[in-house]
């Protein structure tokens, strides 16, 4: 991949001391040229110390949530002029060897965003039934609102973004439930979104923040933000970017 795009892998983490070291080792072993940036979202454990020994690591002085952590990575990527960045979770759910699949799709299509989807094929870990149903609803609403945009896994946290997408999101990125809302923003701004099937694993440590009644609130907010985006946003222009 020496002639490939300059790639940054962003790994947002919160209390992932048990998994982040292994994930970074897997990225290094995956065999493609990239830099890694771990964004420690104010962990109370040894995440920062473990990550810093193996990667660039930025430690947020306070917990900002997944949106704030990932946006920090985008800012870093834009300022250091990376061509693409790839976001994967620090908890090991996203096998780093799948990054190559995202890169190949990007090279083949030139899409601004490539999503790694759990649901395009039936041979991988697919989350709970409730979550899958939620994804189906969000995807259906997205299709209606954004001119037939076909996405099967709008909540996937494994995504590739090119410079245009990075610039857009470095400037403004949703703080809560960022994956589906940021896709809606990207669709409104005229960015091209593609999907590719990837393998994912079940989480080995920690627990999801979207549980029980929280999942209903999640759906309502996500759908509301998507409708709001459809009503208020205009296409992205280069001069919108600060960088």
């Amino acid at each position: 991949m020496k002639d490939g795009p300059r790639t940054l892998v962003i790994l947002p983490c919160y209390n992932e001391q048990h998994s982040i070291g292994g994930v970074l080792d897997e990225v290094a072993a995956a065999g493609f040229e990239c830099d890694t940036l771990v964004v420690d979202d104010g962990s109370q454990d040894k995440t920062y110390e473990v990550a810093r020994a193996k990667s660039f690591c930025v430690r947020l002085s306070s917990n900002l949530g997944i949106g704030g952590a990932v946006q920090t990575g985008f800012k870093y990527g834009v300022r250091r002029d990376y061509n693409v960045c790839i976001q994967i979770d620090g908890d090991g759910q996203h096998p780093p060897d799948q990054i190559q699949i995202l890169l190949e799709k990007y090279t083949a299509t030139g899409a601004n965003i490539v999503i790694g989807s759990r649901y395009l094929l039936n041979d991988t870990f697919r989350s709970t039934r409730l979550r899958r149903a939620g994804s189906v609803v969000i995807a259906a609403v997205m299709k209606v609102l954004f001119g037939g945009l076909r996405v099967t896994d709008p909540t996937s946290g494994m995504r590739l973004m090119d410079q245009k997408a990075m610039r857009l999101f470095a400037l403004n990125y949703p703080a809560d439930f960022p994956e589906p809302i940021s896709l809606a923003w990207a669709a409104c701004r005229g960015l091209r979104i593609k999907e590719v099937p990837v393998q994912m694993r079940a989480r080995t440590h920690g627990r999801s923040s979207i549980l029980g009644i929280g999942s209903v609130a999640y759906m309502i907010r996500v759908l509301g933000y998507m409708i709001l985006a459809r009503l208020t946003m205009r296409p992205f222009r280069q001069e919108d970017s600060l960088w």
Partner: protein
Amino acid sequence: MVDGHGPNVETLWVIGLFALAYMAGVFRKVSRHRLDLYDFMMLSTVALVPVAFAYFPGLAAWMAKITGVEFPFVVMFGLLFVAVFIFNHNLIGRVHKLERENRTLIQETSLLRMDIDNRRKKNDAGEGE
């Protein structure tokens, strides 16, 4: 000031004293820079609107008449609600603005700290050689 249908003298005293004590308390916080003058103005409506309605019952009756409301105190609570709503609306906007600014500040200082740490690390490695 008080006709046959207005509040009695005791009520006027209670409302007046409450207004003075409340506004003095809020003003004390303003003088200690814990609130600003805008907060003082908005919070004072809680005291001033009942004072206006108690001391000028004719005004209250007139407002009830033009708004088509039977009881003046309904108009009073309506006005208080509007004042509290406007104050709340502005506060929510201010909180969100501060939240965004705070988020940006945390991100930028953290990135800056990483840069400084990396340079220091590089310098230390250079000195070691």
